Structure formats: C-alpha cells, structure tokens
C-alpha cells in the first residue's frame, strides 16, 4: 500500500517553490515569482502556508530602500521534500 503524498507539497505552486529552494541557499520573492509565473498575492499565500508548516523560513528586510523578502528551506522542509520524492517514485515505479 502506497503512502499518501504530502498534501502540502502536492500542489503545483507550493511544489515549485520548494523545488526552487531545495537547490539553493536562499531565493528572493521576486525570483520565485518570475520562475513560477505566479501572481504576487497567490505566491504570498502559498509561501505563508509553507512557512506555517515550518517547511520554509521567510526573512523580510530591505536592500537599500527597497523591501526584500528572502525564503530558505528548513530541515523539516528538506525532509518533507525527500519523502515526497520517495513516495512519488513508488507511485511511478521508478
């Protein structure tokens, strides 16, 4: 019997956010928005959900006079992503 996929990651935008963050130390909100093609509002909502689940951490600050939001994946998020990929492999019999 296969494990169910983590519902928090099994959504297109949230999975894309975590997939970007998995390979980098940190990524800017603007970069994630450009790469995913999401609207700022929707992206904020999904980032907030991932942050509440402690999959990512968000740091709001300034670069010069411009506000800047930086996202980083947490250890919990990294493990959740690894489990998600393992479960996917089971579904796809890879």
């Amino acid at each position, binding site marked *: 019997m296969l494990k169910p*996929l983590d519902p928090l990651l*099994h*959504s*297109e*935008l*949230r*999975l*894309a956010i975590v*997939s*970007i963050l*998995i*390979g*980098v*130390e*940190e*990524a*800017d909100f*603007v*970069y994630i928005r*450009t*790469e*995913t*093609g*999401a*609207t700022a*509002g*929707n992206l904020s909502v*999904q980032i907030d959900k991932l942050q509440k689940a402690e999959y990512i951490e968000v740091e709001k600050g300034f*670069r010069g006079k411009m506000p*800047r939001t930086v996202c980083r994946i947490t250890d919990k998020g990294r493990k959740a992503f690894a489990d*998600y*990929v393992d479960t*996917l492999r089971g*579904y*796809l019999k890879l």
Partner: protein
Amino acid sequence: MGSTVSKLDERRSIEIISRMIADTSAHIDRESGKYFLLWGYTTVIVSLFEYVAQVCHLPLPLCLWAWWLIPLVGGVGTLILNRRGTTRPKSYVDRSISAVWMVFGLSFGMAFIAAMVYGANILYLTAMLMGMGTVITGKICQHRVLTIAGKVGMILSLIIPAWHLLMREYGTELRESGIEPIEAILYVEIVIFAAIFTVMMVIPGHVLYNRSKGIKDA
C-alpha cells in the same frame, strides 16, 4: 503555473521538480558566465591595447597605467553585476566560488608585490593563478568546459616565461638584425597572455552563458 493552486498528478509533479531545479541551476550558470565574460574580455582588450601601445611607442605612463583598467573595469563591472543580480538565488556553490576568487584575488595582490619588488613575471603569475581559479571553479560547479579551459590556460601560461627567456637570450641579436618595429616581437608575450585569457575565460564564459540560455528557452 500562474495563479492556480491546483492538485496535480504524479508525472506533472516530477516535471515541475525537474524544471524548477534545471531552471535555477541554469540561472546560476548564466550569472557565472557573465563574470567570466566581463573579466575575460576586459583582460583581452586591455592586453591587446598594451601590445599596440608598446609597438607604437605610446607614452610610457599611458602603457603602465592602462593595465590598471583591468581591475578597475572588472571590479566596477562585478559590483554592477552583483547589484543587478540581487534577486537571483544564492546557492552554496555561489558562496564557495566567491571564496575561491577572493583567495585568488589576494594571491594576485601578493604576485603583484612580488613583481614590483623582485621583478617576478606578473603576466605568467596572473595567467597561472587565474587558470587555477578557473579549474577550481569548474570542479565546484561541475563544468568540464571550465575545468579543461583552466588546465589549458595553466599549461599555456608556461609559454610566457619561455618567451621572456628567449627574448632575454636573443633580444640583442634581434635588435641588431634591424627588424622594425622590434617591439612587435619582444612583446609577443602580451599577445600570448591575451590568447590565454581568450581560451580560459572568454570561450568558457560564452559556453556557460549560451548553454544556460538554451536550457531556459527549452
């Protein structure tokens, strides 16, 4: 992906994961390519200008000061690229590469002092050090093109002191032979230096930039 928060099937999940990871990696490659192009082209253009200046007997202060354009243009350009790239993701690879080039920048400073004080061959030392930096960068980001280019650069850098020695040995004879302008032969080491930077930085810079662009456009 747009504004949807739709559920997805397993194959689409794999597709998203692969694409996001590949795009982010391509983005990092493209940015690295820009730095190689900046430093590579600056070094090649300034070196060729230096060669022409020496051959055409331009005023000595101009010849000496023109070399400073490399750190000046490269440094200011790097600052501009860093500032422009504030939204790009920062990776562990980025941090390692920055540390490597910081150390090699420092080594170049030491080599420069050695050249000023003891008359060490600065062109050879620069080409050798930058070759080493390129090889390490290639190893860190697993780009064979950089590793090979760096190694080739290191090997080619040996031609510079060889030419220097050759000119010291036969320079007087050449001057007496009446070849004009003699500087065209004496300063060929500057052209070799420019050729090394073309192989070591300009070509791999273009390869990195174009390849990452190809991945992104696909």
